[in-house]
């Protein structure tokens, strides 16, 4: 297929299918929510978090019809744990189904809470606002989510990469790991920057890959004064080397 036709196919396909899937979600999700919480008596935040996971899973399956996406091996994650993923593109949060836990409590900045519909559901799902809350409030919300059997998920760069390389990591998830003892599970994503870099609207053909790394336990840094910084360094170094390897393989 000529390159420009392929671009039209990919862009029309992904945008239209994800928009239609989102509209379907807007219509059916209130009924699903009521059914799960009223009839099946599921916990409300957990129900919302699982519904968001399925929305992400559906979106990424639709995207996989137009670009090359391979799901990583779905091993068993320690539960609970803190998943940290690199952030290259707008589509990364849709790839939440790259990891097997469905009850995911995401930590996000303030602005996504203002997106119509999305923001409302994120609040109902008790997602953590890491921009306006202080560490005590974040810790309290994280502990509550863990009590509700949720796995925490962070994009520690705090924003999408401007050049496809890993940005500096913020300390939030690492403070949390040090204070709660929860292991960090790195999730490495590649290819999404090539698919849709920050500031662009045109989707390009790409090979999207993910890899779930072994958990990193914070207890090894307990004795250090700034153990969170050492933990952060170890996690970042591990992810950088994995991403390099993944890029070479593709």
């Amino acid at each position, binding site marked *: 297929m000529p390159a420009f036709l392929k671009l039209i196919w990919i862009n029309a396909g992904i945008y239209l299918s994800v928009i239609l899937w989102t509209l379907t979600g807007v219509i059916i999700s209130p009924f699903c929510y009521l059914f799960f919480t009223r009839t099946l008596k599921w916990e409300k935040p957990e129900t919302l978090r699982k519904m968001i996971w399925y929305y992400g899973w559906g979106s990424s399956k639709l995207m996989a019809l137009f670009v090359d996406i391979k799901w990583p091996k779905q091993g068993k994650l320690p539960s609970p744990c803190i998943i940290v993923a690199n952030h290259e593109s707008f589509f990364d949060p849709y790839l939440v189904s790259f990891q097997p836990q469905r009850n995911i409590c995401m930590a996000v900045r303030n602005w996504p809470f203002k997106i119509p519909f999305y923001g409302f559901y994120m609040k109902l799902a008790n997602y953590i606002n890491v921009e306006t809350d202080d*560490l005590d409030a974040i810790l309290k919300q994280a502990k509550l989510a863990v009590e509700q059997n949720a796995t925490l998920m962070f994009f520690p760069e705090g924003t999408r990469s401007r050049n496809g390389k890993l940005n500096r990591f*913020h*300390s939030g998830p690492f*403070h949390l790991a040090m204070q709660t003892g929860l292991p960090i599970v790195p999730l490495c994503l590649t290819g999404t920057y090539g698919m849709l870099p920050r500031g662009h609207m045109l989707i390009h053909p790409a090979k999207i890959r993910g890899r779930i790394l072994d958990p990193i336990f914070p207890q090894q840094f307990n004795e250090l004064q700034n153990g969170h*910084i050492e933990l952060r360094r170890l996690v970042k170094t591990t992810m950088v080397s994995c991403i390099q390897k993944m890029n070479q393989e593709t």
Partner: protein
Amino acid sequence: MTDAEIIERINSALAEEFELELGELVPEAIFKDDLDLDSLDAVDMVIVLEQEFGIKIKKDEAFKAISTLGDLHKFILTKKDEAA
């Protein structure tokens, strides 16, 4: 502890936390434009400074108005004086 020593401790703590070079940490440096630190970093900054100096700053309105490193030095020096 002298003011110069406090300033040195502030700069060292920030350099380590935010992976900055000590040479970048001049008083006129603007956090957002010169040091590329944003509101998310402010959360980390509060934790680091509270741990380093044993002071409470998270609910201090004056902290929210700080935009340069020099402002932060003055803020911490004042806090230390108040605590003394």
